[in-house]
């Protein structure tokens, strides 16, 4: 028998609230399967299990706020003997059974599922129940909304708890980073004429739904360059560095209401650009909707941030622990360029590297940026 504990979903998370179980005692689970949904400051996280087994007992009930490391469930190995009777989950309050779609709708409509009577199988709350509850709620419980004030005098939006929590979480992770990681910073101006021309030609022949963004080329180029530089890709824990063979790039995604999350895009070096484009679009969408998988919050081996679209020239990154490097892309803009004694005007971007001096040195960091530059000159090979 073994225990499944609430994993840390990032350096900035120390607790979460169990929203829902996706399994019950007796279920067989496979590595990578989503077993629970836990609400954190960043998102409602689909928590994946990382071993095969059979669920024996659920130790935490929905609605409980639990610290990282809490035993969520006990499991037995596949093929091990079953206990005499499955043990029902301990319940502090009777948790509502609710479909994921209904839960999502409940969040959107601000309906508390605890107050809804389920009409589905076994009293489960359905999508229709939530919508019905939402339709009834305003008339029954809420005063009519006040007339909207004139736009010019609109009050600042009230910050939600999640925004406050996220600000605290970012503060904790970045303070840890600045306190413990001896950063060094490098920057390189990289010509982008070839990449831009290739992208324009490629997109010209494609329907809009299959077009690529420059961000995808940049991500793939980072992953390809990392292959020669394991000291920039991995995690620093308990005084030592563990490089990771795969490049799981944490993509910094800003949220419209403020704050940011940098979930992992997995195995970037092994995937074609089209696949990465689809996965990036999905990741951005889910990040902004507040729905991520636990592996996306824990697996990133390096972070890539692109602030060029906001107009900055160069990024001086803060490393997200336990990672050891961050690559920052600035704005692609026309620059005067001298090559082979001739002056020309070319699009270029300043790419920066912030890296951990406990693990690598500026010399290697500089070689990495040169390698990255090389990859961006051969977009057809990305």
């Amino acid at each position, binding site marked *: 028998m073994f225990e499944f504990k609430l994993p840390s979903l990032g350096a900035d998370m120390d607790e979460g609230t169990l929203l829902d179980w996706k399994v019950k005692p007796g279920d067989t689970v496979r590595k990578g399967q989503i077993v629970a949904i836990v609400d954190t400051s960043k998102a409602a996280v689909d928590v994946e299990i990382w071993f095969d087994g059979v669920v024996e007992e659920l130790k935490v009930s929905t609605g409980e706020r639990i610290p990282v490391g809490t035993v969520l469930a006990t499991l037995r190995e596949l093929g091990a003997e079953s206990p005499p009777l499955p043990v029902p989950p301990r319940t502090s309050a009777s948790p509502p059974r609710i479909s994921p779609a209904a839960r999502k709708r409940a969040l959107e409509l601000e309906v508390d599922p605890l107050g809804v009577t389920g009409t589905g199988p076994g009293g489960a709350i359905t999508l229709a129940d939530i919508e019905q509850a939402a339709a009834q709620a305003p008339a029954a419980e809420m005063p009519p909304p006040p007339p909207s004030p004139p736009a010019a005098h609109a009050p600042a939006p009230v910050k939600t708890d999640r925004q406050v929590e996220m600000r605290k979480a970012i503060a904790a992770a970045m303070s840890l980073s600045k306190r413990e990681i001896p950063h060094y910073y490098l920057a390189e101006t990289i010509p982008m004429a070839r990449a831009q021309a290739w992208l324009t030609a490629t997109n*010209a022949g494609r329907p*809009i739904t299959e077009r690529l963004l420059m961000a995808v080329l940049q991500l793939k180029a980072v992953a390809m360059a990392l292959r020669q530089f394991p000291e920039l890709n991995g995690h620093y824990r308990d005084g030592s560095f563990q490089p990771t063979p795969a490049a799981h790039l944490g993509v910094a995604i800003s949220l419209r209401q403020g704050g940011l999350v940098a979930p992992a895009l997995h195995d970037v070096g092994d995937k074609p650009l089209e696949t990465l484009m689809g996965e990036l679009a999905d990741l951005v969408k889910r990040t902004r909707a507040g729905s991520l998988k636990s592996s996306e919050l824990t697996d990133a081996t390096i972070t890539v941030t692109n602030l060029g679209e906001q107009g900055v020239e160069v990024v001086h990154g803060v490393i997200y622990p336990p990672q050891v490097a961050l690559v920052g892309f600035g704005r692609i803009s026309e620059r005067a360029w001298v090559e082979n004694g001739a002056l020309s005007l070319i699009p270029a971007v300043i790419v920066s590297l912030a890296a951990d001096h406990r693990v690598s040195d500026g010399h290697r960091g500089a070689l990495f940026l040169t390698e990255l530059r090389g990859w961006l000159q051969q977009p057809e090979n990305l």
Partner: protein
Amino acid sequence: MNEQALRTEVLATLNDIAPEVDGDELIDDQPLRNQVDLDSMDWLNFLIGLHRKLGVEIPESDYAQLTTLARVLEYLKARLP
């Protein structure tokens, strides 16, 4: 589709991407991306949304024309199927 209906569709598509935007506050002839915080992924999703709702093909080479809400409306109006 009349102009008002087109405008409603365009603003609804924009709201799918940027729910915080109040269409009444947008100035039609000012650059859209200065008024609304849209990165290139948001912009692409906005155009994909317009393509799906209105059936208009928008080649990438035309993106540069679509600077303001007025220009977006004009562009779409001329190409509605």
